[in-house]
């Protein structure tokens, strides 16, 4: 691969002709061949490029999990956070520098079990950023334990008879927490997935997209074929995402796997706008401070 050369060429370009491939890093993903995360990331990069962003103004914060590796594979500013705690880092960065395009990404375990608290509070704060959950209904990185979105009867190493409790409905959690943009997509439907993420990026507030991203190694029930067969695309279902009651009906309908924007509050005003936080508080010096080495040493 030739990514070094490519990114040099990219930096010479005007931000207007940024291509999605400019968001690819020179690291070869270690995801299993066929992992849904490839498609999820691909659509994220396309959505960023389509909305006029470039790697220089983009900050990707990743959780822990197979999904969490995404910050390494994308070419942008990035931080690989601690498990379940990517969202507060993203919020902090956005409030410090509102000019940044902030995208937080992580898994279903990361976001809905250990990070569930951060999730609902990030939703209700409504900072202008995008949150992508790469939902494979399993803990992939730790080799196949049930996650909060696993089916009730899904047998795994930690749940030999299934979790015996209903899966969480992340869309409903977001709605209940006062979410202003709630969507779902499927990593293998590149075009729709890109469109949906793009709408989340464009949304004035917290754009949340739960992305079905099949784990081809540890989940043999929530497969590409399963989603292909069952997905109901709201674009073909005459659904008005701005009508709250219709959105709530669709979101609470636990039997259907929807793809599309389920709910969008057209009048959403982002937290930082409401609070008049438009200034860049992050003063980035031209050179490192003289005592930088000592400061870093403090952490070792």
């Amino acid at each position, binding site marked *: *691969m*030739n*990514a070094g050369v*490519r990114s040099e060429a990219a930096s010479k370009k005007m931000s207007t002709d940024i*291509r999605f*491939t400019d968001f*690819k890093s020179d690291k070869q*993903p270690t*995801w299993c*061949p*066929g*992992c*849904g995360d*490839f*498609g999820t*990331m*691909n659509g994220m990069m396309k959505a960023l490029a389509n909305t006029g962003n470039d790697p220089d103004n983009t900050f990707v914060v990743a959780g822990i999990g197979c999904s969490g590796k995404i910050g390494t594979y994308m070419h942008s500013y990035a931080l690989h956070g601690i498990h379940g705690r990517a969202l507060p880092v993203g919020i902090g960065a956005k409030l410090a520098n509102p000019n940044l395009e902030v995208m937080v990404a992580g898994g279903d375990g990361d976001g809905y079990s250990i990070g569930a608290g951060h999730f609902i509070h990030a939703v209700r704060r409504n900072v202008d950023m995008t949150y992508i959950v790469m939902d494979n209904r399993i803990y992939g990185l730790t080799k196949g334990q049930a996650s909060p979105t696993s089916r009730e009867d899904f047998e795994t190493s930690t749940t030999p008879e299934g979790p015996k409790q209903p899966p969480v409905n992340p869309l409903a959690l977001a709605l209940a927490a006062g979410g202003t943009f709630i969507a779902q997509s499927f*990593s*293998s439907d*590149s075009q729709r997935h890109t469109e949906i993420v793009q709408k989340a990026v464009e949304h004035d507030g917290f754009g949340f997209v739960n992305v079905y991203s099949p784990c*081809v190694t540890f989940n043999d029930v929530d497969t*590409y074929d399963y989603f292909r067969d069952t997905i109901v695309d709201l674009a073909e279902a005459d659904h008005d995402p701005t009508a709250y009651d219709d959105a709530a009906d669709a979101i609470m309908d636990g039997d259907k796997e929807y793809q599309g924007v389920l709910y969008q509050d057209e009048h959403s005003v982002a937290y930082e706008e409401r609070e008049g936080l438009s200034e860049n508080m992050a003063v980035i010096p031209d050179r490192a401070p003289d005592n930088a080495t000592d400061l870093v040493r403090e952490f070792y």
Partner: protein
Amino acid sequence: MAIDPNFEANRDVAEQHEGHRVWGPVDEPEQLGIHGTHVAVDFDICIADGACLEDCPVDVFEWTDTPGHPESDIKADPINETQCIDCMLCVDVCPVDAIDVDPGRAGRL
């Protein structure tokens, strides 16, 4: 024999087919060359197993007729190579190593 990952250096573009390049030499019907650039399929190795067609999450491949070729009379043609998300599944499942995918070659149609 597996596909030559350095085909760009070692071969020349012989023709265009369905929007992608064909890297020669081509001498139909016995010799068909490599189809595609980002997603490259060596038609002279492809045995029409079909795993890539079946498994590619974004449907990059379609069958194309190649009557009279010694290995098989249909081939997996990467006609939607611009859709490729670089998941490497086809490379992994191809039983004869006829496919090479390199995102570094993306955009060179």
